[in-house]
């Protein structure tokens, strides 16, 4: 479907009204991508991207186990997500629930799939929401962070001019 995905860009598509599909290929074998995805100390290093600092990464990696990620975004506000593991196939697939704590009524079911391709790994995250409204709100939450980042930059520029 997504042939020759080069590393560097995530591809986001909306396969259905209540779904989001994120795809990316990594230049590393499957077991390492899985490890980076499921080890708290490693998640701490990548999940917040440049948009903040991660303060909590709890991962109880077993069926029924809980996870929780918290970051302090650059604007100073806290962004937190949590959920529960539903299915775990090491190096292959994780199914988990995901709740953005600012919007607790919208619980999504995520399926993360790790596929090996000649020493590389394709990761697909299928986010299944219970409604289009929640799916859209989920996408908007990324927008808020993006906006926050823009505002931070604006502030920097403003300070440099004063």
């Amino acid at each position: 479907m997504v042939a020759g995905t080069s590393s560097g860009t995530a591809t986001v598509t909306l396969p259905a009204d209540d779904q989001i599909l994120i795809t990316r290929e990594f230049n590393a074998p499957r077991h390492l991508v899985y490890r980076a995805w499921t080890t708290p100390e490693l998640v701490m290093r990548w999940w917040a991207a440049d948009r903040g600092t991660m303060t909590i990464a709890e991962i109880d990696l077993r069926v029924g186990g809980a996870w929780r990620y918290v970051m302090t975004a650059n604007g100073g506000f806290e962004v937190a997500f949590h959920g529960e593991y539903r299915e775990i196939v090491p190096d292959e697939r994780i199914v988990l629930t995901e709740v953005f704590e600012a919007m607790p009524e919208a619980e999504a079911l995520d399926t993360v799939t790790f596929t090996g391709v000649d020493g590389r790994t394709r990761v697909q995250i299928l986010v299944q929401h219970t409604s289009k409204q929640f799916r859209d709100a989920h996408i908007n939450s990324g927008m808020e962070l993006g906006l926050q980042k823009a505002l931070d930059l604006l502030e920097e520029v403003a300070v440099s001019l004063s």
Partner: protein
Amino acid sequence: MARAATTADTFNAVAEPRRRQILDLLAGGERPVNDLVHLLGLAQPQVSKHLRVLREVGAVQVRGDGRQRLYRLNGHALKPIHDWVKNYERTWSERFDRLDAVLDELKQEEDDDGGGHE
């Protein structure tokens, strides 16, 4: 709440399931209203109402062809929605750039441990 600006109106227009269905049908090419009425199984006034909303935000365009009115998709007006997803995509791209760096380190460690020769 204040009425949103035109960009948001495109979102509203497209948020309605029937209107999304109309856009899907028009993605296959230009169609007369009667076609849409038939395919959607709705009454003509309802279809016309949806088409009017879509036309107001520019998502569809209409031209008269004799007694028929033909509707077609205007992809350009849907660009805000494309941009909306792009922003979300950017968050993940940034996140994955960091993950790339972590993975490079893990690969290096594994090579150092398992290689056996320095």
